[in-house]
Structure formats: C-alpha cells, structure tokens
C-alpha cells in the first residue's frame, strides 16, 4: 500500500504492537501516538467497539484490558503493548463482566455502568439484563446455541400434543 505522509508536520514514530485481542495474539504496526479505539476499529477489525463522544463521557468505546474496564478513546494504544484486550466481540458469553461478582446488588450494577450513557433504555432494562445474566451464570444455565435447528415448517398433528 502506498504510504501517504504529511510533508510539513512532525511524524509520529511507528512501533510493533503485540497484544492479545479476544484470545488471539495480534501483531500490528501502529503509530506511536495512536489511540486504542482507532487501532481497534481501523486496524484490528473490532468494529463492535464504538466511538460515541471521543472524550470519555459515553462509554461506547469500553473494552476490558487485563479484565479491567477501560475507555479505549482515552487510552494510548502504545501503552497497551503486551496486554490482554477483550472487546464486545469477545464477550459473547458475558462471563468476564460478572467474573468478580456473580451476584451484584442493584447499586453495584449501577456503579459498574455509571460511565455508560444510554439514550434508549433509561437504564432500567440494562440493570435487568445484567441481573438476568448473573442468574444464568450462578445457576449454570445453558444458553441456547443460536445455530441449532429452527422450527419445522412441516409439523405433524397430535391430539392435545
């Protein structure tokens, strides 16, 4: 690929960045001043990590770094070298969020997500779904495999079934 560089401005350095993203070792060349959010979206292919405000106020860009939540828009990518990063794509079974406390109180849930702005739900449903997830984890319930067979369009008839 052709490199386009700005003629007048001082250029950032480049560095080799190796991190673990959702369980996979990733090695990338990144610019030394790159923001983690941009690297995740533009280079590492994690488009599930969103940009909502760019200044740490909305929480859309949250990722887990070594299991701790972090706003990727306020994180210098270079600082994350060698760390383990989990994005929303890696959260499919939700275990990590509730890993430290699988039976949180409502207040604990609220505190945990206080950095996230939500404009649709009014938050109540988020609290409810975290509660539901914690139930699933504690009770060790199975979640239905989304690829399992869907309904049969040719069902038989049985009296009273």
């Amino acid at each position, binding site marked *: 690929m*052709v490199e*386009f*560089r*700005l*003629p*007048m*401005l001082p250029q950032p350095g480049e560095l080799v960045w190796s991190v673990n993203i959702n369980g996979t070792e990733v090695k990338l060349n990144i610019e030394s001043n790159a923001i983690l959010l941009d690297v995740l*979206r533009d280079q590492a292919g*994690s*488009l*599930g*990590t*969103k*940009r*909502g*405000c*760019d*200044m740490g*106020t*909305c929480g*859309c860009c949250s990722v887990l770094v070594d299991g701790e939540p972090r706003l990727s828009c306020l994180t210098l990518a270079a600082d994350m070298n060698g760390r383990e990063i989990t*994005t*929303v*794509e890696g*959260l*499919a079974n939700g275990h990590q969020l509730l890993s430290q406390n699988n039976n949180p109180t409502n207040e604990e849930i*609220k505190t945990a*997500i*206080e950095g*996230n*702005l*939500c*404009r*649709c*739900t*009014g*938050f*109540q*449903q*988020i*609290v409810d779904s975290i509660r539901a997830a914690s139930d699933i984890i504690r009770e060790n319930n199975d979640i239905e495999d*989304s690829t*399992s*067979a*869907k*309904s*049969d*369009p*040719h*069902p*038989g*008839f*049985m*009296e*009273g*079934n």
Partner: protein
Amino acid sequence: MVKDKEIQGYRQQPGKLPFSKPGSGGKNSFSKPINLENIPVSQNGIKDQPWGPHRHDSLISGQVIGKSTALVDSAWKVTGQAQYGDDVRLPNELIGRIVRSPHHYAKILSIDCSKALDLPGVVAIATGNDAKNKFGVLPVTKDEHAMAVEKVRHAGDLIACIAAENENIAREAERLIQIEYEILESIHDIKEGLEDSEYPIHDRGQYHIGNSNIQKRVFQEFGNISSLEKNTVVSHQSNWTFAGVNHGFTEPHAVVANWSPDGRLTLYTPQQVPHYVHRSLADVLEIPMHQINVHRTFVGGGFGGKSDPFPHEMCAAILARKSGRPVRITFDREEVFWVNRGRHPSKIEMNLHADSIGRICGIETDALIDGGSFASFGHVTTYYNGVLHTAPYEIGAFHYTGARVWTNKPASGAMRGHGAVNSRCAVEVGLDDLAEKLEVDPITLRLANLLPPHSATITGFRVTSIGMRECLERVKEESGWSDKFRKMPLGKGIGIGCGFFISGSGLPIHWDPNKFPHATVHLKIDMDGGVTIHTGAAEIGQGSDTVVSQSVAEVLGLPLDMIRIRSRESDTSPVDLGSYSSRVTFMNANAAISAAMKIRDELIKAASDITGASEEVLVIGDRRIFDKNNPAIGVSYLEALHKSQEERGALISSGAYRTPPMGKTHKGAAAGLAPAYSFSAYVAEVSVDVETGKTIVDKVWAAHDCGKALNPLAVNGQIIGSCHMGLGQVLSEEMRYGRTGHLMNPDFLDYKIPSIHEMPEVIPIIIESNDPEGPFGAKEAGEGPLLPILPAVCNAVYDAIGVRTEDLPITSEKVFKLVEKKCREQGVSSPLDLKPPRLEFSDLQDTLEKRADLHSTRDIERRLDSSREEYYNGAIFGFDPTKSPEEVDENWSVRVIPNDDYLHSPRLAGSAWKHIERRKMGD
C-alpha cells in the same frame, strides 16, 4: 418419546410424516394446539375484550402478538456485529471531511483549494459550486445546499468537503483551503427574528414575510372566543422559556457513498427516513432516483435527529463521484451538535381559562420557536406547538398564534414528541394551577373534562380510541395519590401530567394520499417455507423490524424464526415514508397484515383443495391449517404452501395502508391529523432540596395508552426510555449559547444527559384501548410517552416547595432563585421554614367527581357501541354533540387569518402577522 404417539390428520400416516418435503425438518416437529387464552372471545376463545372486538380478531393465531419478544435484530447488537454507519468499510475507501464555517453569518467571497489539492493523498475536494440544487424535508421549504452557496448561516455550516487517503491528510488539507469571508451581522435572539432585517437569513422570494426572519407563522382561532371573558372565573397565565435540546443519540452521523462500476450510487447511512435522502440525492446529483440505492445501516438512535436529508450525505456522494472511490464521512460529537435538528428553543405564553363549573372554556397559546438556520420540519413544528394540545380535553375556545424564526444557530428540527412537548408542558402545568385556583384535585379536573372515545377535537381531528381516563385512574391509584397530594412535608412532592400524540401523520408530505399509499409491504415465500418481508420501514432501534415480523407471523401462524426481514435497501424495499411521527407500527403493521392476509387466503384455499374441507371452517394455527371443528383434519403449512405453488412458484403478495379521509378543510387542517392518537398520564414523585434547589425525581408511574401492546417488552422500553429523555429536558439538558451566540456545550461533558444515578424507578403501565383501525388495535408508543414527564415533574416541584417554574431545565440555580423569592413572599428567613402548599377542596370537587363518573359511563358505552352517534367538541358546553358547533352557532369561530383587531395588540409570536407577505405588498 413423541415419535411413538399416533399422529392424526388428513391422509396422514402414523408417526411423523415420512416423505421428505424440501424445506421440512427442524425443531418442534408437532404443531402446538391452539391456546384459547390467546384467542379473543369474539373468536370463541377466552381472552377478555373489555374494549370490544376488533377487525383483526380472526387473524389471531396465538403465535406472537401481545407477547414480550426480544427484538429480531438484538443478537447482532449484543455481540457487536451490527453494522452502524461508520462500520461500513469498503475496500479502497477514502476518508471524507467537512470544512465548516467558523462564522455565524458571512458571505463567502472566495474559496481557494489549490494548495490543498496539491497535498499528496488528497483525492478530491468539492464546494458549493459542485452542487447548486436545493433540497429539504418539505417540498415547500427546500432551503439547504450540499455546501454553502454564497453564504454560511451558522457556525458549523458546511463550506467544502475533502476526500483523502486518511484523516490526518484530510485535516491538513482543511487547513490549506483558503476562504475569504465578508462577515454579516448575525442574529441569535429569537425575538429579533420577528423584526425586519437587512439580510434575512433566507430569501423566500414572493413568499417571504416582509423583510423578516419569520420562516412560518400560524394563526388559529376556534370556538367560543367572544364569550370567553364572560364565562371565565379563574385563569392561568404563564410565560415559558424552553431551552433547545439535542437528541443525544449514541451514534454520531456517519455515511458511506459508493458508485458501482455500472454508474449507480449506493449510499450507506443510518437514516430514519431513507426515502427523503433518496429524493434529495436525485435532486442534488441530477440523476434519476432509480440510479440510487439508499442502504439504511443499523441506526444507533435517531429520535428525530436522523430524519432530515443531510448535507453531509450529499457531500459523500459528490466526493465519491469525483474520486471514483468509496468515501466515508464520520462526525465527531461536536459536529452532531452543529447539525442539531433538536427541539426548538421556545418562548411560550400559555393562558388557560375555566368557568364556574370547572370546564376549560379557553386555551390561548402563543409560541415563538427558534428554528435556527434552516427550515427542516419547521412548518409542521409551528403547527404542532398549537394543535397538539387541543386534546384530550374538551375546550370551549382555542386561540393559537405560532411563529418559527430563523436565527444563526444550528437548525432545530424534529425531536421525539415533535412540537408537542413544550406547549404540552405549559398546558399541563397550567391545568394544575387552574385546579389550585378552583380548589379541586387536578386529576379530577382532568377526568371531568375529557373528550369521549370516537369524537372530534375543536380543530376537527377525528379521535378514535381513547384510554386517557384509564391512564389517569391507574396512575392515581398506583401512586397512592390521594394520600400524598398536597399532604407531604416540605421538599417532597407529587405531580401529574398528561400527554396526547399522533400515531402517524395523516398526510404524507410528498404525495397526494389518494395517489400513493402511506406504507407498502411485500412478502415472498418459496418452497423452503421461510417468509421474506420487504419493507422500507426504517428499523432505528424502536423495533419496527420486530413488529412487522410479528404481524406477519401472527397472521400466517408461524414462529418468528421462520420470518426474515429485508428493510434496508431501497433497491429491494417498497417506498416507505420512514420512521417519524410515530407512524411505523400503525401503518406498516397494517400493510404487513394486509399482505399476509392475501397469502393466508391462498394457503387456506390450498388446504381446502387438499382436505376437501370448506374454506369457511379452516383456520390457521401453529404451522398448520385445519378444520376448527375437527383439528385432526388439516395439513401442515408446508403442504399447503407447496400446493399453492404448483402453478406459479413462489408466493408473492403486496399489502398497503393509507389513512381514511378525515379532518376539516381550513388552511393547516392537515397538520396534526392522524389515523389514531395515543394518550398518557404520569405521576412523578420528587424530592427538592430547598437549601440548594436541587431536584431529584424519586419515582414515576407512567401509564400509556398504546391501543394494544404488540410487543409489551418494546412498549415498556419506550415508556422508560421516554421518561429518561424527558427528564433530561426538564432537569438538566440545554444547548447553551454564549454572549456572542456561540454554542458553549457541544459535547457530553457539558451537555448533561441524566446518568443512571439520576434515573428514578419507572413503573410502566400499559393501557390497551383497542384502536379500531390500528393493527390488532395498536397505536404508537415511541413519542407520546415523553410528553407527560415534564409537567409531572414541574407540578411535583410545586407540590414539594410551592414554586412554579416557567423556565426549563429547572437547574438548581433557577429553582433556588424561586425559593428565595418565595421566602421573601412568605416572610421567612430560612427556606427550611417555608410552608409547602396545602389544598382544601371546594364544593366544586364534588360536582367534578359526579361529572367524571357520568362521563366514565358515557365513555364505556361509546367505546362498545359501534352504531354510536357523532360527538363534536363543544357538547360539554351544551351544544348538540352530533353537530359541529360552527354549524349551529354563528359565534363559534373558525379562523386562520388574524383580523385587524387582533393586529392592534398581537402577542409575541402573533406579531409575525404584522408583516405582509411580499407577493401581497402590491405593485
């Protein structure tokens, strides 16, 4: 084991049907028997129908309607797989960047792009000269360009756009573009917009109103204006100031444009109204609409803020055309505020009058709204500020003057509750004050003045189902109102507020409703049995894909997992007006039902052909069509499908919806006209710290009449989410402009959206008034639920500390100033010594309770009696309910143009009528 049981049915072999039909197989290999609890009594089921039968009752198969259903696209979202605007990444893409005006108002003298074009990595630059055609939401107010032509109208207005290999280069190119301006005197004060100006922000030619910045003015006078003075015993008068608020959707605007090798444009955009963009692109690019495919991506929240066709969408298409490569433009949050289209900053004067027996004998409203620099939906907003508070109450006289002015601010537009929110707040607070002055309970006052179901408002809106009374009764009871109202200690308060909102706009903006339907849905089913729905209804997170899928699944007796919906691309979806004015459930689900009914008829005919049973006795249950008197006689869905495919292959059907003819004929009569209306009543409980003025909302009981909750999970979500958004406006949200007119808080740090800690517990209460024309009885639930929370909180603050606010948001500073004033009035030195308001009911309370009881009986009779007579607003004042009062009373005014008398002393917005339209200036 199921397999061992005997299966009965038409020529059916014992055991699971053995022949392998293409498409057969999968889970739940036996049809579930019909659960009578899901079937309405009108169809011999056992589901109660307190509001009577419905025309769709016979279509209920008991599958999904009325059951809480996770949104059909939720799996994409929770796994991060949903592609929103900026997630569309095409190979070889360029990054587009908008060059914006630093000035509020200026002529552009020259733009020199040569240096920027020389920068390696810059591929294309466009300016206003590249696309001079105007576009806009309404055909009559096309006033936007892709980029400024001649002048910029607000700080942040678009001047040029750049496509470059990466963002850094685009930003550097921006710096290299040289622009010369001649700065013009900008206006920022809404009142100044009413005056003549040397350089009005737009020139509307012969339709321009004087030399002013008035974009739209409305005058409406209905009812018994002349005897208002004589009849009035108490009045409320207030002068409100409402700050502008922004939608604050989570996903900033983003767009990707790509011209394919065959010369067609695909525009990927998170739009609520893809069809308007489609039209505008054709205008701006000067190509026919069929050359454009508008691809709606997932939408990360819109709330009205993504329903205009936007200049940046045009820019992306222009840059992609120039460069021959895909172009992606993404806004940062600040740019979202520059584009705005949020709720109008407004000044509203509200006067309410009640007569000696507690009837609302007059509402006089004057609303001056700040449109910022473009028209957007402004015509409509100007009407809505008036006409949407002519219900749910029966009123003796309605006088409305409204004006929308241009100022050099980012444009205001449509936002959830469009045009109804601010004036509704003023009305409901006013009613609270009237009740206080009449010494009656404010809920009783409302209950004794409601329009009955199937009536007409004073402006001639046809209202069908009304669940207002039930909303009020439920929140009153569940909140423990009677023990709390005017009885709680200082600092604790409870308040009521109501709402009324359109469920779809009666008139499509772009076409004659007789010439083209409001909504169209196509279905396609092939031998696999899965149903593909094609609809243009824009899924914006509200659950429209789900509700349309549910409707089809219900009629065809299929589980949701057999339905797939294609609602994204204009190439494949029928034209739809999009997701605004709370129209989608009402119109698209109705269209979907009618498309599904056609398929259903074919399946039943096929089943009849196979079984020999007559079509009249065949019904659709869970994936099976059978004789309702002997369910053993029947065929599977797939068998019937294959039978009906014999001669023609895939089944295709199309269903459409249009509104019935309705309403009056005066100028502006169509604004606010809807096929149905939603109603809501909220009670809020608050704590106000008298020493700091800080208000905390503790709990909200929120009752909303949505006709029928097709998906209760989504309806509850809309109610709670609406509360959150409305609380933001009443407590903290405000687009703040500085002394020189600059927007001070275009970011989420200073623009204060309530966080989870400010959010009270909300108890959603769903009222189902069974609308006769709604799909399965449904009406809207997405916007109406926002309205009541603002006045409920304001009224609760009064109950807590005895001060009435007329200025939103009610920040601590503002409330504390009012507390200080109150202290002076009461002669106390510490706010802690303030006396909270108390209320002894007068004799009128009894009268009103009796009237409310009578009306309650009247309403139940009317809603159940299909041969009911007409009921026109005015009957409560003694007019014959079956005749429109203007037909029987010559003093009953219907006027939409002010007379000279009025113009001698107009109110604020009304003074817009002092100007003469240019074409009427003579010579």
